[in-house]
């Protein structure tokens, strides 16, 4: 010590809670306090007058030497940080653990000399705290970065629902600044609007459970968005909950996509109506609850009449447009409580909920009228439409969805078989009949009949109305079933057409008619010709064409004894090939007539293109000719046009003598119908012609 006597300052120095060491310019220890001696494990006598560098082994003696030099020579003060020299002196605490040090070096003047005063502070604990804090801060920084750039919005609110923290995404989603959001109620801000929902959420949260759900929200600009919310209660160590973390993810896009996908999977893209699967699902659900329900449920199967014709004539674009317009009419006809579906092609279905079945049926009948009065326009063409509807009522006998739709479909087939444009109600008791209506049933029957030769020929007279002409007959085909019952073509021909069997029937009819002609050649001088019906499919069939000529040749029959009847619609569906077919047979000597003229496209323009010999005026104009002036005018004009084109005319559906009389006056050449002669087995012609003659 500088002075051996204990002064107050000595006492103070020796009680200081830091190390003090005085060193002279020769690096000799001049003085030190108790703290330093204790920490260094030295006795006062053991260090005074000793060179500091011999007392301690320093890691970086140069640093200490520099600061001592600067202090003793120039009066410079220095800092020796704990970060760069944590253990400058090898000091230990009472528990023999190393002490981390921060040293301040100052220059002191005493007796005209400069000395270096080193003040050593124990910073072990603060350094450890600092390092821990540093570590936590770094972790926190990472967390806040994660929160800052998180695509999810995060909010923390307290037990009153008031928001205390949000991340930038939360601000972005709500469109509100952070300062506005803080202290707002989480639930009012995020539009968990229903009080009930909010109560439910709170109940769960307060119970320590998390809540997950989807919510529709609205941002400051009024734009709606969907989020999936996860709200977690934050429990302290004693289980109390003071805060809640809410994480929201914007799922608007996801929902839209999901919605779009589910819409596409349940809807028909052309009409926007639900599709078959979805309709079946709805019907299944309805069937399941039908017993309990007080309402009546009706399923209808709708099929557009003559759709194929329009599709073939106008192309697929026209067909699609028709389907779309048809769907639109149906939609405007029913209110939203009824289900309308497109099952595929030109098949539609409805599920009607009604207090009483009668009114529902009337509604369906009204739809038929609406469709009938509708005109579909495509380019320059205008088409009238019809719809066949099969209707069935869902009752307790229904076992499954398939049954319901099948019932409606078969009822629709019956409606079609009866000529279309009508409603048929399914009845469980005519089940046998229903079964017989099935296409597959009839297709099989037709095949059987072709093999077993169980078709029979009928003929209906075509009577001259203007005296000078000979009688002709239209050959008709009938199916004789096992029981010997004769079945009209209305039942099996549509099935044959759908299963591409009609040309086989045509061939059968042609062969058998020609056989019959050949067999009775000499008895038929009074008969002008026999008219054979040809289906649309046959008109494209070159093999059949060759076969017809071959068959006539083989039997040596006068070709003019035969006429072929084709329908306007069949001819127009493939005009070019049909014309070729007609031309070949006409050149050969056969006659052609255009059947049902006026019921289809009714365009006189076709008459210029289609070279035929006879025009058959559709029965629907003829039957009311006595009462309806328009019908009469139609018949008259068709007749006139026909004559101008060089054709003979035949009126169908001549049901009585008055009609016959009027037709004669108009100048129609021939008449056909129940009033003039019913269809009869072909052999009966030989008897009946005498009557007529």
């Amino acid at each position, binding site marked *: 010590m500088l002075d051996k006597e204990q002064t107050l300052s000595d006492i103070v120095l020796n009680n200081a809670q830091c190390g003090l060491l005085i060193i002279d310019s020769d690096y000799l220890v001049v003085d030190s306090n108790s703290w330093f001696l204790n920490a260094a494990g030295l006795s006062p006598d053991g260090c005074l007058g000793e060179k500091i560098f011999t007392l301690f082994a320093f890691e*970086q003696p*140069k*640093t200490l030497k*520099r600061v001592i030099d*600067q202090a003793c*020579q*120039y*009066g*410079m*003060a*220095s*800092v*020796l*940080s*704990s*970060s*760069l*020299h944590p253990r400058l002196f090898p000091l230990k605490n009472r528990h023999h653990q190393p002490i981390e040090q*921060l040293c*301040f070096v*100052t*220059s002191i003047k005493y007796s005209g000399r400069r000395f270096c005063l080193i003040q050593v502070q124990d910073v072990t604990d*603060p*350094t450890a705290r*600092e*390092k821990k*804090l*540093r570590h936590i*801060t*770094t972790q926190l*920084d*990472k967390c806040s970065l994660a929160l800052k750039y998180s695509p999810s919005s995060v909010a923390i609110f307290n037990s009153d629902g008031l928001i205390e923290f949000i991340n930038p995404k939360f601000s972005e989603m709500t469109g509100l600044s952070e300062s506005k959001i803080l202290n707002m109620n989480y639930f009012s801000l995020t539009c968990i609007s229903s009080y009930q929902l909010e109560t439910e959420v709170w109940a769960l949260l307060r119970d320590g459970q998390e809540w997950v759900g989807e919510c529709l929200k609205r941002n400051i600009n009024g734009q709606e968005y969907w989020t999936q919310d996860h709200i977690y209660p934050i429990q302290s160590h004693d289980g109390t909950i003071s805060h809640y973390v809410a994480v929201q993810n914007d799922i608007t896009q996801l929902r839209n996509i999901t919605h779009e996908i589910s819409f596409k999977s349940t809807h028909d893209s052309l009409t926007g109506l639900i599709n078959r699967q979805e309709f079946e699902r709805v019907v299944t659900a309805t069937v399941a609850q039908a017993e309990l329900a007080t309402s009546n449920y009706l399923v209808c199967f709708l099929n557009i009449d003559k759709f194929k014709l329009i599709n073939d004539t106008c192309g697929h674009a026209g067909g699609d447009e028709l389907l779309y317009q048809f769907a639109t009419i149906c939609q405007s006809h029913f209110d939203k409580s009824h289900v309308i579906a497109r099952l595929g092609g030109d098949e539609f279905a409805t599920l009607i909920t009604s207090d009483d079945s009668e009114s529902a049926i009337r509604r369906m009948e009204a739809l038929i009228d609406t469709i009938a009065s509708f005109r579909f326009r495509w380019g320059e063409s205008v088409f009238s439409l019809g719809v066949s509807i099969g209707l069935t009522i869902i009752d307790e006998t229904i076992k499954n969805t398939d049954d319901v739709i099948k019932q409606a479909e078969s009822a629709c087939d019956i409606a079609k078989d009866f000529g279309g444009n009508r409603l048929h109600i399914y009845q469980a008791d005519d089940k046998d009949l229903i079964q017989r209506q099935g296409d597959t049933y009839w297709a099989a029957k037709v095949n059987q009949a072709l093999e077993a030769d169980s078709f029979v020929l009928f003929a209906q007279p075509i009577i001259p109305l203007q005296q000078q002409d000979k009688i002709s007959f239209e050959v008709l085909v009938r199916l004789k079933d096992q029981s010997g019952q004769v079945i009209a073509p209305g039942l099996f021909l549509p099935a044959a057409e759908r299963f591409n069997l009609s040309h086989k029937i045509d061939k059968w009819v042609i062969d058998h008619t020609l056989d019959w002609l050949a067999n009775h050649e000499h008895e038929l001088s009074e008969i002008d010709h026999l008219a054979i019906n040809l289906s649309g499919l046959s008109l494209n069939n070159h093999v059949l064409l060759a076969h017809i000529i071959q068959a006539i040749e083989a039997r040596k029959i006068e070709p003019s004894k035969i006429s072929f009847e084709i329908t306007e619609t069949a001819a127009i569906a493939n005009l070019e090939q049909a014309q070729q077919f007609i031309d070949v047979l006409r050149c050969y000597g056969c006659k052609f007539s255009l059947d049902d003229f006026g019921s289809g496209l009714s365009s006189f323009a076709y008459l210029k293109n289609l070279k035929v010999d006879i025009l058959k005026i559709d029965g629907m104009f003829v039957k009311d000719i006595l009462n309806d002036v328009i019908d009469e005018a139609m018949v008259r004009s068709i007749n006139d046009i026909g004559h101008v084109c060089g054709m003979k005319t035949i009126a169908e559906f001549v049901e009585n003598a008055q009609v016959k009389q009027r037709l004669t006056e108009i100048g129609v050449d021939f008449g056909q119908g129940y009033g003039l002669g019913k269809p009869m087995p072909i052999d009966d012609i030989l008897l009946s012609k005498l009557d007529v003659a």
Partner: protein
Amino acid sequence: MNQALLSDEHNDTLCELFNIGMGRAANSLSEMVHEEVILSVPQLNTVKASPTSLALSLGQSRYLHAIEQCFSGDLSGQAYLVFDDFSGVDLVRQLLGESAMCQDLGELEQETLTEVANIILNACFCCIAEVLECDIESDVPLLLKGTPNELFHLQFSNAGLAPYLLTVSMTFQLPSKSIKGQVSILMATESLQKLIKELERFSLIYT
């Protein structure tokens, strides 16, 4: 203004003194961190001191770390080693080899920065005192943080009459990075005149 105060010759001498000081400081730093540290001194400038001139000398910095060391004796004033924006943080991180996630200096890092500045400033003052054979004492360094205005407004009140500002721009060349800093010495006119006198005495002896 500075032309009138410091001649080119004075300027060159001072620059040389700072160069030597920086060289020594670089040496000390290199030994401490076991990495080569080079300190370059590009230029010295003297202007009439005001908060504005100090702010100007620091460019567009928004946030500063400054280590203040007061000195007294034959020459007196305040010396600052100033790091703009995050260069102080960068320097410490480079020296301590820490990651650069956080933008704030912790307690330990502040100590480090203080010691680094202390080494540089002491080296320069020792060199001046040694060469000019004058007596300068310095206080323990102090770390200041804030915007230029916050930092220096108060300091001017203790700067004595018509203070001048002597600025020395410098660059720390570390192996991986170069970091800019500036030594600014705030001296009263009286003190600056003493410095000039000492410089002239030095010139007479050595020329």
